[in-house]
């Protein structure tokens, strides 16, 4: 295990990549925050062609996308309690 970790370190030292740097990953995350903020407030600047009244609420798509995705993950996590079994659960069948 330790050898593997060392080999990894050596490989990363020999093949540097900008994604190895934690600061660059943080930069990506900050860029995402910035883009989201910009998109959220862009609702001021264009005309929506709505089919349903709720579509015209300010930031509807952004809020809906965020809340539903959090809901999706939490729902799926709860499903694990009931549905998750060992990986070899069905192996005795075959």
């Amino acid at each position: 295990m330790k050898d593997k970790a060392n080999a990894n370190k050596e490989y990363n030292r020999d093949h540097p990549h900008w994604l190895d740097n934690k600061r660059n990953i943080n930069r990506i995350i900050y860029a995402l925050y910035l883009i989201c903020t910009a998109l959220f407030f862009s609702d001021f600047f264009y005309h929506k062609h709505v089919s349903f009244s709720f579509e015209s609420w300010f930031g509807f798509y952004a809020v809906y996308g965020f809340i539903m995705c959090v809901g999706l993950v939490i729902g799926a996590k709860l499903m694990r309690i009931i549905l998750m079994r060992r990986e070899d659960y069905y192996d005795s069948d075959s």
Partner: protein
Amino acid sequence: MIAIAEFLLPLNPGLWLIIGAFVAILLPQSLSRWFAIIFPILLIPFLLSLNFGNHGTVSFLNYQLETFRLDALSRIFGLIFLIASALGNLYAVGDVVDKLQRCAALTYAGGALAAVFAGDMITLFIFFEIAAVASVFLIWARRTQKAFSAGMRYLIVQIGAGVILLTGLLVHFSATGSIDFNKIGLHAPGGILIILAFGIKAAFPLFHNWLQDAYPEATISGTVILSGFTTKLAIYALARSYPGTDLLIWIGAIMTAFPIFYAVIENDLRRVLAYSLNNQLGFMVVGIGIGTEMALNGTISHAFCHILYKALLFMSMGAVLLRTGTCNGSDLGGLFKTMPWSTSFCIIGAASISGFPLFSGFISKSMILTAVSAEGYWGVWLVLLFASAGVFHHSGIKIPYFAFFAHDSGLRPKEAPWTMLLAMFIAAVLCVGIGVYPAPLYAMLPYVVEYQPYTAYHVINQLQLLMFSALAFTVLMLTKIYPPELHSTNLDTDWFYRRGIKSLIVWGAQNTIAFNKFCYGIASKSVSELIDNVKQLSAEPGILSRTPALGSSVAWISALLLIILLLILY
């Protein structure tokens, strides 16, 4: 001879492909693999050069079989099937497949293609089943016990659906006298059976699990090829025979939503893709249910784009499986360093399925959503919007993230073979090409497209939905709420036939044995008691040991006859 030639030429391109499958067996291995790529490509100009209409009408047992109907709907499905077949076979060169698998791949694509061009239900049925039988060899070719069992289950479901289709078409034929493969509708005789058969093949909710069960067990290139045909053929058949059926709107909406929950917790990334395939089919089923010109255009173009980006995603995961021997999210990560091309192509596929502007999914899926909102189904529209965000979440982010980034697994595999990379490259170019310039695709659709995907509000709204979905992923990851990838099996409907029925049979058998023992116990006890009694009676001076006199017997018989006589008289 001339009469036969007039009947058969131009021959259904699917039949050409099936003939090609046998040629591929006869050719030496080095030629055969290139033949399997070039032959479908050669059929594309042949297909596009033909005029619309019924070619190849054949009389068979007093039926007029329309073996080759070419119209706008069948042409576009035929075209994408040929492209998918060529790409799949190109990818398979890198997987070093044997001739059996190549023959199965061509026969499968040929069967599906021939079914698309079927003008009557008998031809449709025959080629649908040829495709079903040929496809199972792509699963069995993996040659593991698990793949064999999964293939068996897959085959039973496919043939079962075929039997239902046959029953439906017989009921329909006996009531209407028609075998035409046109609009049928739920209320036609046999209509429910036929939609059920198509529904099983299109992986409707509760009938869906054959897909997630079998596809990830197939060979590396087998899964890529399987992902293209069976379900899309079912979508084609539904679009042909059940457009505007309200029931499909609700079925489709459920189909878009529930598989994505499974996709979030599934560890095998090819199985995650199988769940998201199911979700994408849901969008198409909703479009068929809405049934307006825009909705059907949306469904058909979405099927076209979907085959390409789904194949691309399966290709990239296949490359990972080939090079690392696993496709489990829990064991992968950090592969972007040594597989940069596969990573890039995977991200293009992910952006396409998520419907990012400038990628293919955007110009097709948005048409379905607009058609749904035009008909005022706000509930369904909200479900589809949720599913769109969810697709990005589990296919768009999860697949590339856990395979190529996430934590460093320490795996340093080689990049995929060049033929695989070339297949991925072509698929990626098509995904971006269609997204940037959708006009040629729109021009091939059955109805005139008056839809403009690239408007400011449309692009901004889609970006808001997707970027906030990405934000949710990031926040959940940073707060460690996101469920980790775990080695696990998640129960789905296949539990009922893999465990439920089995347990029932075992329980039944055990009880039968117990009951049998119980009865045997009683019976043997009473028989031995009977034997004891007879023994006692037979022994001196028991009643049975006496020798009765002849006279008394005669008296007994006379008495019996007298009783019978009295009974007859009264």
